[in-house]
């Protein structure tokens, strides 16, 4: 039985449908990410699980108990918020002990101190007990917030874009920390983000959201390689999503063609920029360079292809010969790396 079972959860704000029938099972111990653009309903769903919002319809079952109508303080879940919200009148130890002191079987003073120290060690802030919030950096504050949630040993830890307020370097370090903490605690993490890179790097499974619905629920590599629809393909990893016609097992493209077998008729052709290779101008698909961006590990080009409305995005390794705007190139698309989606 899953740890969290959401069934047909709907949330209506006046005319706006924030959640449009979401059903989702979260397995014990997994790191599940709710990914989507802002306003897609992912944070609303997290708040439904936390107990801050009572859904208009549907049910929330956590660890076998129906908690749909239960307030936040009666749920075995804890949350880390987007901004590091430490209680200003308490020091770090006071913040972390806050939840422990509210437990029905209140632990002894010694036990509280022990568990606070343990939680601080888990987020690598040993010895920070007596610090105040204003003496901490944003990253440290967020780690205290993480310790404060984890010290309760929750069945589920909810994280609402916890890294989005941090700058990039600290964010990358915190990702490593989050993966380690997840491994060490064995807790179930439900993580909300709009950052597809973060989702791919952290998750066991990703639920991609759009307009209040889950569009795809899969492991990161499947979301990346086998996006369920053009939205997912564009949102995760910025793929080329080309509107094409498949005729007798091939797609005509810029004077050449790509052999594809599965489908026929109007389709979306999904190709990742890094799976496309460039050759000297000649036979096959012809393109013209219209934009060049150096990426460190390689170079990203935008190509104009005859018969295509949008530019084709290509990313080649640094070892490739450099090309400049206006150069004519030939484009090599391996059918193995292509995905066809039915277009209606």
């Amino acid at each position: 039985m899953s740890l969290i079972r959401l069934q047909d959860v709907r949330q209506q704000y006046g005319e706006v449908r924030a959640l449009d029938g979401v059903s989702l099972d979260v397995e014990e111990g997994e790191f599940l990410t709710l990914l989507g653009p802002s306003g897609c309903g992912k944070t609303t769903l997290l708040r439904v699980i936390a107990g801050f919002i009572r859904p208009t319809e549907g049910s929330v079952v956590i660890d076998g108990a129906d908690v749909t109508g239960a307030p936040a303080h009666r749920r075995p879940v804890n949350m880390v918020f987007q901004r590091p919200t430490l209680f200003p009148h308490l020091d770090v130890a006071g913040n972390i002990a806050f939840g422990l002191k509210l437990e029905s079987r209140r632990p002894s003073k010694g036990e509280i101190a022990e568990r606070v120290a343990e939680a601080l060690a888990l987020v690598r802030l040993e010895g920070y007990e007596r610090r105040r919030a204003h003496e901490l950096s944003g990253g440290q504050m967020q780690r205290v917030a993480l310790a404060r949630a984890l010290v309760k040993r929750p069945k589920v830890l909810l994280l609402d874009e916890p890294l989005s307020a941090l700058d990039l370097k600290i964010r990358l370090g915190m990702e490593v920390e989050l993966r380690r903490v997840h491994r060490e605690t064995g807790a179930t993490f439900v993580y909300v983000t709009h950052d597809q890179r973060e989702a791919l790097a952290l998750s066991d499974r990703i639920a991609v959201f759009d307009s209040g619905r889950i569009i795809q629920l899969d492991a990161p590599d499947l979301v990346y390689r086998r996006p369920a629809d053009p939205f997912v393909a564009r949102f995760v990893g910025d793929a080329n999503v080309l509107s094409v016609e498949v005729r007798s097992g091939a797609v005509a493209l810029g004077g050449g063609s790509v052999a594809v077998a599965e489908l026929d008729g109007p389709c979306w052709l999904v190709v990742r920029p890094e799976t496309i290779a460039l050759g000297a101008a000649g036979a096959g698909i012809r393109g013209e360079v219209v934009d060049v961006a150096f990426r460190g590990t390689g170079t990203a080009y935008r190509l104009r292809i005859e018969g295509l409305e949008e530019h084709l995005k290509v990313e080649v390794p640094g070892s490739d010969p450099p090309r400049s705007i206006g150069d004519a190139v030939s484009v090599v698309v391996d059918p193995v790396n292509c995905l066809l989606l039915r277009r209606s």
Partner: protein
Amino acid sequence: MTDRLRSPGTMIATLIVLTFLYAPLMIVVLFSFHSSGGLSLPFEGFSLRWYEDVLLKDEFRAAALNSLIVAVATSVTTLLVGMLASIGLSKVRGRARPVLGALFFVPLTLPGLFIGLSLLVWFSRIGLPPSLATVTLAHVVYVFPYFILILMAVLTRLDPTLEETAADLGANPWQVFQRVTLPQIWPIMLAASCLTFALSFDEFIITFFVIGSDSTLPMYIWSQLRRTVNPGINVISTLLLAITMILWAVAFIALLRSERRRRASVPEAGKGVIA
């Protein structure tokens, strides 16, 4: 700015205004320490005799005690009712809030004469005899909007996520208030209570309408003035001034401290990147 201040015209005007504002105060304070009974210059030497004279008077003591009772009762009542009202008001969302808020704030604009007269009529209509209790009720009506105004300014800026965080960590609504909201707002409540105390302590017009045979300090000063100009009045005024200034100072420091702490601990919303 500095250049303009330096021009002689501006400087003279500034001096005149400041003198006009503060000279009368200084004179009252100064003459409360006058060794002779004279109320005009020249100043003939320092003495505490008028303080002794006033402090030993039974009428003064009774009036001071009454003022103290009324001010304490007023500020405590306002604290309890005002706290509940402003917390409730801060949770109201949407169009109802400005309307409700306005209803609470409007008494601020009413003339004291009007409040005094209407309460006098109201109290006699419901058969409440004038006493310190009616004075207290009247003072609560008078100071309530000030209290709400100060508290609301702070409550509406409290981070609601902190309360959600507490609830998420297992705090029921009462524990959230007691352990998170109250520790954040008590300095403000202290400040607001100092102000309501000070407002009540030297309130005259409304008191004049609703008081019975008792007397409060301002009433006592007024009754003394009607007879002769007694040097003791300078003493009472100075004492009133001192108490009021101390209360304002406490209020100001409390406000300043809470504001500094609030700024230091929670990153501002929408500030973007936090290093």
